[in-house]
């Protein structure tokens, strides 16, 4: 059909919205609550256009034949500006990098004529909410309800007292929230955000020189952040910044910079061994992965009958922490409590995991501070390090050496692929020739494949996004597989709740490609071939699933009872 935008004839398809047509024709319409991954709701009223002398929101108005649309009349511009002014009237302060700040600049808002009125509310959960910043765009609610399907937050109260909150204002800590942090990831205003892990310790990290005499700082970086950290400093999504990240961390002042990929390698060896053992005994199948703390919390809250199927392995972060506080601390002669393990994660839930009481192998927390990608970006900015100009650097040995199998942990399907590489060699006793399992890569929410290993058909499934996980479990399909990988965030850790904003489906895909690229360029691609891992088993752990590894690298799960009611 033919429509007119600003007097210019434009072709449009039926069912398209005005915004889609305009964007395709490079006609600019500002948006705020609109997000390409979500259903447009038309809450913020910033994307207004004029049709038939009426103002309509372009994000959710469908085009009609012979429609005449004006995107820049005086009336439209004034209405947009006034709406944004009303929205911002309650915002405490605006950082330059927020979406809202950019928009305010574009629409030319200099002064806000209204006063602020709402108080800050803070909780003790890993996610905190700042009502001073919330503009009720509704993205978090939509993510929680439609994508993650937890339904933990919705709008409560009405009118000016409306806020996005849990039912009956239960503190997040006691609610079924899994701390996946997708709500925070979609927030255009940093109103929902990660809680600073332990404020005292974070201050340590920011001013390490003051306590250097007594403390020894090491840092581990998660597999997925090297594909996304660059975005904070204006690089293209999908740029690998491993080397720059390492030298930035050194500049911040860490004594040693290690890699969580090492922990991932360790995890995969334990997990593959557990898998092979279960397959041989044909017991507690399918084996479900345990790397994702949000998924674990979800299972403990909602599906306790699955707990026996979940692998008992700790997550890579906690395995690394346990090894660092026992093996590494002894090796360098530092007391475990003086060894500060900082981890940089794409995830908010990892904060919750590190605080768990059972994660204390040496009498003190295995991981002391968890920072998200965004927080690391903020620290780098604070220290005035010019990230783009940094030289590439290498991880320290021994805990910085990793295989390609660890590198792809951050993408959906990565854990499965890497586990299959190890399990293949364990089951057959031969060396794997073709390490790429391309049939399990992809971006669909639920994928499955059958892999033939020595007369055995191994059925694997990969699920990402809590909404898909719920679908998988409630449909009962999970029973027919041998191995299931569950990741709470869409796309796996590369789309995690602590990643840089904005994150859309396209950006997730680009980050994923970067990780597979990294895997391809690695010399060692199977976790069990990693010499550092071999050494640690020889010197310290003994054998996979041995007594010591069971004590240090495995954990238990228990059903969570609702505490609040």
């Amino acid at each position, binding site marked *: 059909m033919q429509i007119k935008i600003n007097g210019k004839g434009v072709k449009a398809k039926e069912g398209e919205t005005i915004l889609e047509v305009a964007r395709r024709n490079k006609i600019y319409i500002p948006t705020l609550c609109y997000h390409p991954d979500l259903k447009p709701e038309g809450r913020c*009223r910033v994307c207004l256009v004029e049709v038939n002398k009426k103002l309509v929101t372009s994000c959710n108005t469908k085009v009609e034949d012979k429609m005449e649309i004006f995107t820049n009349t005086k009336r439209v511009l004034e209405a947009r500006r006034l709406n944004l002014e009303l929205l911002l*009237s309650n915002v405490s302060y605006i950082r330059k990098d927020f979406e809202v700040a950019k928009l305010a600049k574009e629409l030319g808002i200099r002064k806000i004529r209204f006063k602020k009125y709402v108080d800050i509310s803070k909780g003790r959960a890993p996610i905190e909410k700042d009502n001073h910043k919330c503009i009720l765009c509704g993205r978090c609610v939509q993510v929680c309800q439609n994508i993650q399907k937890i339904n933990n937050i919705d709008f409560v109260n009405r*009118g000016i007292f409306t806020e996005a909150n849990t039912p009956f204002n239960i503190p997040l800590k006691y609610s079924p929230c899994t701390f996946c942090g997708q709500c925070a990831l979609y927030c255009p205003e940093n109103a929902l955000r990660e809680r600073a892990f332990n404020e005292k310790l974070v201050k340590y990290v920011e001013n390490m020189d003051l306590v250097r005499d007594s403390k020894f700082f090491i840092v581990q970086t998660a597999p997925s952040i090297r594909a996304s950290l660059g975005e904070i400093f204006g690089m293209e999504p999908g740029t690998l910044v491993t080397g720059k990240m390492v030298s930035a961390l050194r500049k911040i002042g860490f004594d040693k910079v290690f890699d969580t990929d090492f922990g991932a390698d360790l995890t995969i060896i334990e997990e593959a061994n557990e898998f092979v053992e279960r397959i041989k005994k044909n017991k507690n199948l399918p084996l479900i992965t345990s790397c994702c703390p949000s998924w674990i919390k979800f299972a403990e809250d909602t599906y306790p009958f699955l707990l026996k199927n979940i692998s008992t392995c700790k997550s890579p972060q906690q395995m690394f922490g346990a090894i660092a506080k026992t093996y590494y601390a002894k090796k360098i002669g530092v007391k475990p409590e003086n060894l500060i393990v900082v981890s940089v994660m794409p995830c908010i839930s990892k904060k919750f995991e590190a605080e768990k009481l059972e994660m204390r192998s040496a009498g003190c927390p295995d991981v002391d501070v968890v920072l998200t990608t965004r927080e690391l970006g903020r620290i780098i900015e604070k220290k005035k390090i010019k990230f783009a100009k940094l030289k590439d650097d290498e991880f320290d040995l021994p805990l910085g050496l990793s295989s390609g199998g660890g590198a792809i942990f951050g993408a959906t399907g990565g854990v499965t692929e890497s586990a299959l590489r190890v399990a293949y060699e364990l089951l057959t006793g031969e060396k794997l020739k073709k390490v790429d399992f391309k049939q399990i890569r992809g971006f669909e929410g639920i994928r499955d494949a059958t892999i033939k290993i020595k007369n055995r058909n191994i059925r694997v499934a990969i699920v990402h996004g809590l909404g898909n996980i719920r679908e998988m479990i409630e449909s009962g399909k999970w029973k027919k597989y041998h191995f299931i990988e569950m990741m709470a965030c869409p796309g796996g850790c590369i789309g995690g709740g602590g990643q840089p904003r904005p994150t859309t489906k396209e950006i997730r895909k680009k980050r994923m490609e970067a990780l597979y690229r990294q895997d391809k360029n690695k010399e060692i691609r199977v976790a069990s071939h990693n010499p550092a891992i071999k050494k640690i088993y020889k010197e310290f752990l003994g054998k996979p699933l041995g007594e010591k590894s069971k004590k240090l690298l495995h954990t238990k799960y228990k059903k969570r009872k609702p505490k609040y009611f």
Partner: protein
Amino acid sequence: MQILRKSEWEGFKKILRMSRKEVIKKVKESGLKGKSGSNFPTGLKWELMGKGTRYLICNADEGEPGTFKDRFIMEKNPSLLIEGIAIASYAMDVHKAFIYLRGEYSYIKPKLERVIKQSEKYLKKINLKININLGAGSYLCGEETAILESIEGKRPVARQKPPYPSDVGLYGEPTCINNVETLANVPLIFLGEWNNKLELYSLSGDLENPGVYEIEIGTNLKQIVSLGKPRTKPKVIYFGASGGCLPYKKFENLSVNCKTISEQGAMLGPRSLIVCGKDRSIVELSKIITEFFLHESCGYCTPCREGNFRIWELLKKIEEGNGKKSDLKLMEKLAYHIGDTSYCALGSSSTTHLKCAIKYFKEEFLRLCR
């Protein structure tokens, strides 16, 4: 009053002998229009229903301040309403109807249930079940799409139109939503001797005799108001909270119908007149009505949520004597802005009263401004 006529289900017995199309045609010919204020032809609404499992909803969520005609019908002549629902259901091939009753009217529920039980033998003939749903007190639930959300058990928020409820309504099926008065008028059409021009008006305010009156369309304002016997000389007439207001003195001789009222910038709505006497301050009245919308705004879209709050702030400032002329200007701008850009009908009509007040009583605002 014709609405109080006891029908004994005669109209229903008549329509059973007619085909569905004939019933709709008859309703169309009668010229019955929606009495909730929309004035949409009822017959046409019935005809436009899409295919699927159809539902009928009787909108008894009478939330507009100063409106109580539906309550009057449900209290005095509920069987006429049930008969109307039965006829409408027959005409549209509906087998499940809902009465969405305002939460504050819960005392009427047993009465309605009793009537439904008594008329079961008629309802069985067309295999109709009538459910009564109680609202939880939100004014927005009077909006037709918010009713759907509420019955489905969700937070009442208006839906984006199109698709209209006649195609995608309750549980995604075509749904017809009619007002109580509209449905109660339906059986009368088939009884003959039905006067199309008689409507129910709710009069309230500074009156000796407030109440529901049956008035012919086109009666002038003075006659209508005099029925209620004003205590003092009326100054301003509010057409409910969302309908705006008109100065009494200027429009004494205006014949009241939807067109004439909307020409003057107000909106007749569900025919409720709140008469305010000469000792009332227009700024105070505006503030009271804004407080009502502040309380009832659902918080979905920016202009209604934030804008009404800011208007309330400005009104308070002006009332206390701290306002400036620029504040009045800003308030007027906000009032038109909210009307222009809000998401649903509640938002866009929430400032009609202020627009009218500033239009007709500007001096009074200016007197309070510094």
